[in-house]
């Protein structure tokens, strides 16, 4: 059991959007859930939090985060990225492998894991590269990463597709040995050479090289068939087209073990925004059409798409203050995800807060095999809990975010929902909507010893 992280009594929070109840958090655990809980009679100091009007949810789990460290500390560090995560309501993030050096060895994944522990803002679960150097030629030492202190279960060459069908087959087969999952960045490279934006009506007018939907869909179709053939677990990163949703729906109906993720930006934004040529809208996979957006929302609502993954991708400003073709691909997302999902899924009536908890926490933890995350808000469970004010409205200002990246495509938009508090293993990393203090790993472990 975790050591001393204090006692907190949350009063009157709507649990998963349901009836108000009180939550007593003590020493890293949800000690009690009920009504009329009182600070009287508890051991030691009790901090009482009035949560009337707030929704209590399990801490969010991101299956897809770029923390940039090691290598691009000018873009983001584990410290700044996980501060952003905490503010966004996340208690766990999966750090993608495309760092420099690439996270393709036990040494690098342990380094990232340790940086996460030291920062203390969230669980940092490194994702291991599938192939050495993301080069798509030779399998990385997947077993060594799985056995390391980082206990890697998700493997991905994200940013690059594992396009060689034999290599993909082998990776899918091999990770079965330690219950791993291959998270595929579905992008057929030959069909997308030099691609700049979604191929369609808008790219035709703008004269930007098109990125056809079929380049994503053909890889997903191949991979679900491979996963079926070898009986493996496949995860599809950042699904962006209506056709991809159809293929995954078909695969699930056939009982293929596939999970899929959608980003908040693909739930809201379309390629019409590219007409500005502002590279803040340049992202991989690209923003698609409104028909795709609607299909993605429907897919997330009906369970075809399992989780929301941010694909948080901070970049230094000089990589966005340039010509479209020169600009880096990617958008920040950790601090806006909750609001965008509330806006696109809950306020449209497509989902409830309980559904939200499933797609942002429980299902994500299940994909990454995180045992202490994505749990129900019940007595005895780890206290990874967030409090959200669904009535709040705020205007996105990238310069007021904790991430070092200023590349938010939601800049200037008014969005609903605000994270008021984040409890990470019973410790408030965020209180009153502001960063509090990180989880004191060292002190807790010393106290517990």
């Amino acid at each position: 059991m975790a050591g001393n992280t204090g006692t907190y009594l949350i009063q009157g929070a709507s649990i998963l959007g349901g009836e108000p109840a009180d939550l007593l958090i003590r020493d890293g655990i949800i000690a009690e859930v009920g009504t009329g809980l009182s600070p009287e009679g508890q051991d030691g100091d009790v901090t009482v939090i009035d949560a009337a009007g707030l929704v209590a949810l399990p801490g969010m789990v991101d299956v897809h985060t770029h923390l940039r460290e090691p290598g691009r500390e000018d873009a983001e560090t584990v410290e700044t990225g996980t501060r952003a995560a905490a503010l966004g309501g996340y208690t766990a993030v999966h750090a993608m492998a495309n760092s420099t050096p690439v996270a393709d060895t036990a040494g690098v994944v342990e380094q990232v894991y340790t940086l996460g522990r030291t920062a203390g803002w969230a669980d940092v679960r490194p994702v291991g590269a599938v192939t050495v150097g993301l080069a798509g030629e030779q399998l990385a030492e997947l077993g060594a990463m799985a056995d390391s202190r980082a206990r890697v279960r998700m493997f991905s060459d994200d940013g690059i597709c594992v396009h060689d069908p034999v290599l993909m087959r082998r990776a899918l087969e091999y990770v079965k040995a330690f219950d791993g999952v291959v998270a595929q960045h579905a992008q057929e490279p030959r069909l997308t050479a030099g691609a700049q934006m979604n191929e369609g009506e808008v790219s035709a007018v703008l004269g930007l090289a098109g990125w056809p939907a079929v380049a994503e869909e053909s890889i997903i179709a191949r991979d679900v068939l491979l996963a079926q053939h070898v009986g493996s677990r496949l995860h599809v990163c950042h699904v962006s087209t209506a056709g991809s949703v159809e293929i995954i729906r078909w695969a699930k109906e056939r009982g293929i073990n596939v999970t899929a993720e959608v980003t908040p930006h693909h739930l809201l934004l379309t390629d019409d925004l590219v007409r500005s040529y502002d590279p803040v809208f340049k992202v991989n996979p690209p923003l698609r059409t409104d028909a795709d957006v609607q299909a993605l929302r429907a897919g997330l609502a009906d369970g075809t798409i399992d989780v929301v993954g941010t694909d948080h991708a901070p970049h230094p400003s000089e990589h966005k203050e340039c010509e479209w073709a020169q600009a880096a691909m990617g958008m920040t997302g950790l601090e806006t995800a909750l609001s965008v999902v509330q806006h696109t899924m809950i306020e449209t009536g497509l989902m409830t807060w309980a559904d939200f908890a499933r797609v942002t926490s429980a299902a994500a933890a299940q994909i990454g095999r995180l045992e202490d995350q994505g749990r129900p808000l019940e007595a005895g469970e780890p206290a990874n809990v967030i409090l959200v004010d669904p009535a709040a409205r705020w205007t996105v200002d990238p310069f007021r975010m904790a991430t070092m990246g200023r590349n938010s495509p939601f800049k200037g938009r008014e969005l609903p929902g605000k994270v008021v508090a984040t409890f990470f293993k019973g410790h408030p990393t965020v209180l009153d909507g502001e960063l509090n203090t990180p989880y004191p790993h060292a002190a807790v472990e010393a106290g517990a010893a």
Partner: protein
Amino acid sequence: MKHLLSTQDLSLHNAIRILDTAEEMSAVGDREVKKLPALRGRTVVNLFFEDSTRTRISFEAAAKRLSADVINFAAKGSSVSKGESLKDTAQTLSAMGADAVVIRHWASGAPHRLAATDWIDAGVINAGDGTHEHPTQALLDAFTMRRHWAKLSGAPSEGADLKGMRVAIAGDVLHSRVARSNVWLLRTLGAEVTLVAPPTLLPIGVEKWPCSVSYDLDETLARGVDAVMMLRVQGERMNASFFPSTREYSRRWGFDDNRLRALDTLGMKDTIIMHPGPMNRGLEISAAAADSPRSTVLAQVRNGVSVRMAALYLLLSGDSREAAATPVLATAGTAHSTKESI
């Protein structure tokens, strides 16, 4: 008009205004002293990130005929990996006091970035960006067509549009900024446009454009055209499976001698043949077609200077300087006085 970035958002009023102003400018080119004092003391920078001697000297001649100071800035190469960024270049030009920037860039949208950011306050003219647009080329094409169309009807060009004119644009539409700018502008001016190309060289989404599309040049000619514009086939397309061979391309989509004869056979004595240059003789256009009396290739070059003078003049004299600018033209003794408020 603060910038000239695209013909897509150019209103009919502004398009006609530019063409009419170009008619006045063209009269200057016919005089012994080909110079107006209109832009004396103003600085025009030709910022070229891609080689294009023809377009650059056309803009240079236009600016000099208006007495502007001209700076040529050849910034070839990729901005981030090989040197200065577009932002730094723009801020440098701004610090030097550029009043207008004529930008040619290999990246679609680069002129929009200059115009939309606070990197530089100058007026921006798009002199061709990637595979996006080339608005002054479309304006000079329209100017050439309008003169031809007006002559046929016996009316003056000034104030006229292109209503009823049938224009075929043939070739690599997918990669052509000239085709895009022409489609939008000719639609605005009332012409009927047919794009003719192999399906591989048409963009996905072309069906939403305000024009017809054909894969068959002969059929398009047989239906009747008043102008045929041939697009240049870029060398880098030739080995990328867009078409099997240059010979097959030439047979199916080139304006060859047979098609030149067909215009006569079909009785289209007034149909003109256009090309934005530089031409691949023997590929998309035969030598006989390029040199025939129907060819407007050199007239297009000549008209390019007039149109670019008009664009620079209208951008730099702006609405706030309208009152002062009009007499400059008038005292210069151009053939026509300014008829409408510009």
